[in-house]
Structures are given as C-alpha cells and as structure tokens.
C-alpha cells in the first residue's frame, strides 16, 4: 500500500495581471483581470513507506504547489491525493500528527525565545507526554548535534543551527511522512552534510517516508534512490537517479588549472570545451571516458590542479527539458 498516492493531480491558479504604468495601475484598481496559470498538470505517482524521493524541477516548475497539495494546504483543482490514508485537504488531526512540512526559510521557531520554548509548545500541541518529550528532545539533539544550542534565543543561532532547530521542531511529533522544501538552502557545506546525514539517519531509524526538493545535486544523490522531475507542471521523469543522469547528463565536468595558457586547438580533443580563461579550462567529458581522459590530461599536459564535479542539477534538468522527453 503506497503511503503517498497522487492521481492526475492538477492545480490552476488565478494570477492578477497588471499592465505597467499609471494607466495600467488605474485599470488594475477598477477592474482586476486574472490569468489562469496551470501550476501542476495531471501529475500521478505513488510512494511506498520508507522511501526517500527527490523532487526536482526548476524554480516555478510546480514543486512547491505539489507539496502544498500533498500536505493539505491547498486544494487540488482536479485529481485525487491520499497521504497516510487521509485526504490531506481535510486536515484531520490524525493526518496532521503523521506529517510535517519544512519550507526552507519559513520558520515556526519563535525568534526571540530559545528553541526549547517552541519545542515545549509543539509538545503540548501534539499531546506528547513529558517523558516522551524529554526522550525525543535528547535523541534529536544528539542526532542533530545541537547540544547547548537549544537554550539560546533563536536569533543568536547560525543559519545552519537554526535550520537544524527548525527540523527538530518539525519532527518532534515523530511524523511518518516528511515533506521538505529546500532543507539545505543557504547552508554551508558542513551544515549541508549535517542535515543530510540527519535525514538519512531519521529515515533509517523510524522508517519514515521523505519527499524532498533541493537545488543541490549532492543532497539528492546522497539521499534519494528515486527522483521525480517536474517541468512546467508536468511530471516528466519518475525513476532512479542513475537512470536520470545516464539518460540526460552522461558526462561530468572536468576543471583543469594549467601551468601555461594553451590555445583551444590543443585542448579540443579531450572533451567538449565549456570555457577557457587564461590557465584554467572547463570540459564536459563523457562518463565512460572519464578515467581515460583524466589520465591522458595528467600525462600530456602540465597540470597544477584538476577537479571533477557532477554537473549542477539545474543543468541536468535543463538537459531533460531540452530533450523534451516525457518518458
């Protein structure tokens, strides 16, 4: 039995349209015109309990709208959705106790008070007993390495600590289904790794289901075996992450710092050149040719530094879109 199931889910929004300039403003005041925007179109998927699924798409592709429909904040214009056996939009208490939604910057923590105060409020709101409260706070504090941070006013915490405390407040009631919208946005690399490790651990320990969006490929590749890609409201890919990369980005990016600047002709045969700036050059190299090409570069050129990275997720998705492929 899937724990999340969406069937032909669609959402249409009215968006007020205003012409620029004074004339447009006056028209806007007296007669407002609206344009209907189809944010999500006929999206269907099932997610089994315990799965960690990445939800990818460019800004405005419909990710957040879908998450809001799955959590019951907005009502679908058409289609069916069930989460943990409930219809989300009814927001029954039994449903709310099983889910959580974390949206990057929107904090539920009370800014001027220590995070512990918010946690106490949440414990009361979710009917968590004192004993259980202490146990869970202890456990989560350890998992998130937040020792000593919970009794400082939230405004004094660093962005990374605040995000972790935010996660803690969102997870105190031990939800079975986690919807995370950009949980690592704006965090430095260490904090990103911390949050990632925590989510992996949480998923393992409680067999929780996680659906998360992220702009960081590293988040997705560390956590998700399966990804959903949404583009202009349409679900265009549902499958393994490897499959997605092989299919749409079967290459990696190689960045070389050379001892001496070299002309383009000398570098061309290593891979598709993306840019040459003085001594540094960037190539795209086919995955299967990667080891060979890197060895070749190191052997044939005077190299100061060489790095190999995954193409940014936006770029992979960009390829998916330009391929236009509904699979």
């Amino acid at each position: 039995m899937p724990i999340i199931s969406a069937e032909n889910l669609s959402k249409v929004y009215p968006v007020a349209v205003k012409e620029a300039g004074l004339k447009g403003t006056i028209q806007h005041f007296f007669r407002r015109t609206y344009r209907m925007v189809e944010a999500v179109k006929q999206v269907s998927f099932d997610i089994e309990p315990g799965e960690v699924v990445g939800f990818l798409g460019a800004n405005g592709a419909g990710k957040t709208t879908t998450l809001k429909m799955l959590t019951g904040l907005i009502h679908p214009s058409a289609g069916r959705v069930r989460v943990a056996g409930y219809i989300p939009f009814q927001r029954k208490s039994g449903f709310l106790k099983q889910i959580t939604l974390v949206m990057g910057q929107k904090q539920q923590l009370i800014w001027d008070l220590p995070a512990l105060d918010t946690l106490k409020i949440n414990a009361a709101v979710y009917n968590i007993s004192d004993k259980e409260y202490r146990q869970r706070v202890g456990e989560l504090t350890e998992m998130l390495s937040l020792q000593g941070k919970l009794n400082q006013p939230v405004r004094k915490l660093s962005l990374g600590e605040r995000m972790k405390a935010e996660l803690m407040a969102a997870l105190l009631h031990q939800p079975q289904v986690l919807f995370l919208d950009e949980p690592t946005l704006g965090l430095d690399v260490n904090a990103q790794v911390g949050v990632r490790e925590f989510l992996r651990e949480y998923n393992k320990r409680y067999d929780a289901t996680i659906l998360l969006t992220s702009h960081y490929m590293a988040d997705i590749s560390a956590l998700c075996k399966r990804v959903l890609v949404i583009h202009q409201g349409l679900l265009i890919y549902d499958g393994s992450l490897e499959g997605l990369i092989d299919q749409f980005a079967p290459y990696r990016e190689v960045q070389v710092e050379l001892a001496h600047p070299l002309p383009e002709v000398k570098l061309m045969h290593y891979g598709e050149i993306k840019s040459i700036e003085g001594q540094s050059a960037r190539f795209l190299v086919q995955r299967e040719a990667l080891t060979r090409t890197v060895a070749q570069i190191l052997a044939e050129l005077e190299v100061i530094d060489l790095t190999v990275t995954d193409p940014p997720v936006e770029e992979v998705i960009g390829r998916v879109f330009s391929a236009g492929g509904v699979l």
Partner: protein
Amino acid sequence: MNSIMKKARVLLTAYYAYMLEYRAELFLWALSGSLPLILMGVWTQAAQSGQFGLTAEDFARYFLTVFIVRQFTVVWVIYEFEKEVVEGKLSPRLLQPIDPVWHHVASHLSERLARLPFALGLVGLFFILYPQAVWIPSLNHILLFAIAVIFAFILRFLIQYTFALFAFWTERANAIENFWFLFYLFFSGLIAPLDVFPENIRNVLLWTPFPYLIDFPASILIGLPVNILQGMLVTLSWIALFFIINRWLWRRGLKQYSGMGA
C-alpha cells in the same frame, strides 16, 4: 480536558516568557495607554465649571478606570494575523493540530499578565498624586467589573480578529480596523463618558457594541447607574454575532487562501 489545560498552560508560559523579553517595551506600552489620563485632566478642569452631572472626582475616577480597562483590553491581533498571511507564516501553523488563533489568544493573555505590574504602578502613582479621588468599590462591583472586562476583551478581540480575516482577500486589512477605531474612540467612552452624551444618542449607542468595550465596565466600577443585566445581554449577543461571522469568514478565507497558493 487534561490535555487542553496542559496546552493552555504551556502556551501561556511560553508567550509570557516571550513578552518578558521586551521589558522596556512593556513599560512603554503601558504608558502609551495613558490617553485617558490626559483626557482626565481636560474633563476634571471642565467639570469645575459645572453643567455636567459628574463631579471632578467622578471624572478622575472614570478615566482612571478607563485606563485600567484599556490595559486589559488592548488587542493587536489584526497586525499579527495580517503579517502571517502576507508572509506565508500562517501555512506552517495550519499544519498543526490546533487552531492558529490560540497562539494569538495566548500571547494577548500573557501580555496582560506581563504588563500588570506596570499598570498597577501607574494606578498607585495616580492615587499618590490625587488622593481626593481615592475610592474603594464594593466587592460586588469589583466582581461585576471583572466579568464586564473579560467580556469587553472577548468582544474586542473577536471584532478585531474578524476584521483581520479580511487579510485573506486584501493585503491591508488593518485599514478596516483604523476606520473602525474612529468610532471606537468616540462611542466607547474612551474620550468622554457616555453620561455626558445627549440622552437620545446614548440610547442608540447602548444597542451598539461600543460602550461595552470601555464605558460599561468603567461605570460599574465607579458606581455610576447602569443597567447591568441589559448590558451583559447586549454584550453577549454581540459576542455571539461576531463569533458566527468570524467562523464563517474563517472557512471562506481558508478556501481563498489555499486558492491563491497558501
């Protein structure tokens, strides 16, 4: 029941701590409610020249009580609620198994508690400066006054929260509150006791919610003649009416909010 009590206790404690974070502001807030004390000066002067049914001491006591009532009935839910809607902070609150209004109720109630010492200090100061106005109300009057103040707070909160719900449709719901505040200022007894209004105007006003927000409880405490039963019944009717409108708007508003993307 037990869990409701626990929720109430925890919410109040947390918001009380929150309010105490603003020590200096609390004092200023208490002071900022001192319009009645200024008006007291004006009216006691005017009373010296006669022609009102009330003496200078009556006016002094009246406005002191108005000051106290205001301390207990200050409401700002519309500004907070509007911010939540515009900034999208309402969304996470909607995903908790508790109506978001209880956060506002708790913050208002605990703020009362936090500003109480300052308000009492100001009352004490007043009696030191103006000893001839000291009076001891009967226990009966104090009890009725307490009930009337609680009603006044509930009514004022409900009215403003109802206006606040218009934030679902317009970005500036507090414009409604600002407009309404003009009437509140004149008809509630904040600027002048209802007793100095012409008889026919007063009779009309007694059917509106305004006098029950300030004049009614104040008059009870200083022992002016008021129809207590009628007053309480009218207050309760307005509370019931605004409650119904409020719940209806809340349901309609949530639909609108989600329709626009939450």
